[in-house]
């Protein structure tokens, strides 16, 4: 983890945040206007609570049975599926081309770097998946999955976490748009279906497991201070006022960024959950995202030496990601 990049990037990012308000507004509006996306977003909200049942019941009979069988290894004796819950809680919706009969869509979780890709049957009143495949992001992007070298967005080793998140998100979205925006969408989907479904899901589970394992450090008996800190930051993000946040966090553009953050609807902020915990040599990073609007993420970096934690808001959408990448390439 190249720790210093986080702070410097924060200032650069702020330049984009303002212009992203427009993108955010457009995006939100699209969600409302596109009935297919609306349906999918609603299902995600239910799936983050009861993933096993919700997804099974939502899908066609055949797809539901395939889902139930495939995910069994990740369901605990009490019926809960915490890894899947975490997947749906902070997965963003990707929409491919849609018509009245069918379409392609996906849930993508950058923190677990996994994508649930599905073909929709839009002929019914409430469009539902009639086939799907759950893939690790690497395989979806045409890279090789390697359990020994987890995705940079899960465990960054070569670059700063904020850039890793944005780069991984953008690379995945780019592949999705290039394959599923046009007439070839169904053929591309059929290509992905050739993968061994159970084997792919096994790799998806490994990704989710790694993310969960890093987070589980917070529950370590010797790490109670970190858990307290994670809870304190969580409380602030969920309900802290602009003034309260400004008192705690620093950073070149923290003030402006915090003002924009606190302008988000209360419901979006109240449902913020932790998505990553990374303990580096020079700093510790706590990442959070809203389970109501997962495009909204916040990284808090606590320096090892004395100093205020820094606040960095990320928006997971195309325009924001592109601008960040442009800044980086300059």
């Amino acid at each position, binding site marked *: 983890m190249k720790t210093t990049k986080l702070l410097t990037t924060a200032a650069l990012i702020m330049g984009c945040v303002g212009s992203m308000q427009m993108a955010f507004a457009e995006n939100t509006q699209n969600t409302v206007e596109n009935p297919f996306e609306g349906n999918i977003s609603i299902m995600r909200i239910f799936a983050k609570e009861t993933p096993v049942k919700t997804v099974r019941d939502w899908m066609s009979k055949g797809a539901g049975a395939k889902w139930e069988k495939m995910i*069994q*290894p*990740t*369901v*605990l*004796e009490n019926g809960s599926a*915490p*890894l899947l*819950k*975490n997947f749906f*809680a902070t997965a963003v919706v990707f929409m491919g081309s849609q018509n009245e009969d069918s379409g392609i869509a996906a849930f993508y979780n950058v923190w677990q770097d996994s994508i649930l890709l599905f073909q929709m049957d839009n002929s019914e009143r409430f469009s539902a998946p009639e086939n799907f495949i759950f893939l690790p992001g690497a395989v979806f992007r045409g890279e090789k999955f390697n*359990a*020994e070298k987890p995705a940079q967005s899960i465990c960054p080793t070569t670059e700063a976490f904020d850039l890793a998140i944005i780069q991984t998100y953008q690379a995945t979205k780019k592949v999705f748009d290039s394959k599923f925006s046009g007439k070839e969408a169904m053929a591309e989907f059929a290509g992905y279906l050739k993968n*061994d*479904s*159970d*084997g*792919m899901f*096994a*790799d998806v*589970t*490994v990704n989710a*497991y*790694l993310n*969960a*394992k890093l*987070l*589980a450090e*917070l*529950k*370590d*008996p010797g790490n*109670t201070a970190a*858990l307290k800190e*994670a*809870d304190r*930051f*969580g*409380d602030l*993000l*969920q309900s802290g006022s602009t003034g309260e946040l400004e008192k705690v966090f620093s950073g070149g553009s923290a003030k402006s960024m915090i003002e924009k953050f606190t302008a988000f609807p209360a419901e979006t902020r*109240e*449902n*913020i*959950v*932790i998505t990553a915990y990374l303990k580096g040599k020079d700093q510790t990073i706590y990442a*959070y995202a809203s389970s109501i609007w997962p495009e909204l993420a916040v990284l808090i970096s606590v320096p090892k030496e004395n100093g205020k934690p820094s606040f960095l808001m990320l928006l997971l959408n195309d325009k924001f990601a592109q601008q960040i990448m442009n800044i980086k390439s300059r």
Partner: protein
Amino acid sequence: MKNNGTIRFSMAVLLVCGCVFLSTDLAAAEKSKAASSSVQKNDTAKKTKATGNVISKEDLEKLTTTAMEKSGNPLMQAGSKWLGWIDKIKKVNSLVWDGLQAGLATNEQEFLTAWENAVVDAFGEGVRKNKWLMEQIRKIGKEIWAWHMKEDKKLKENNKEDYERSQKFLQGLLNLGR
């Protein structure tokens, strides 16, 4: 072995397990358990929504075992059994863990060979092809041996007669097996 996917899963899960066990202080596991459960009780009372989604290490271990048991794949079910052995090693104050060889090992090398064979028996010869994985298995083995020696000495000191009797008994069983 049904397909490559399940094999890969087995290997990947084993990889992850290897990391988990490596980072676990076997000798301290029992002691920390009580502390862990009391901390978790407190967590439940204080839990805020933001960290409510964090899965505890214990649940993660349960998930790994569940994934193996439910896979319907004999290879992974064997892996689950192996996890059971690890559990025994951690929890039971015993000279013997699922095999006479380990209990009878008189030096580290003998023990490591037995340990390696036991893991390969459970997961299949394919495990040997992964150099990294084998290295992790050996590292875990070394830790277990260190723990074993500690317990062994304690037993010897505490009850010399019982210890010698158990060694003879194990040797007899092993001879019968041959």
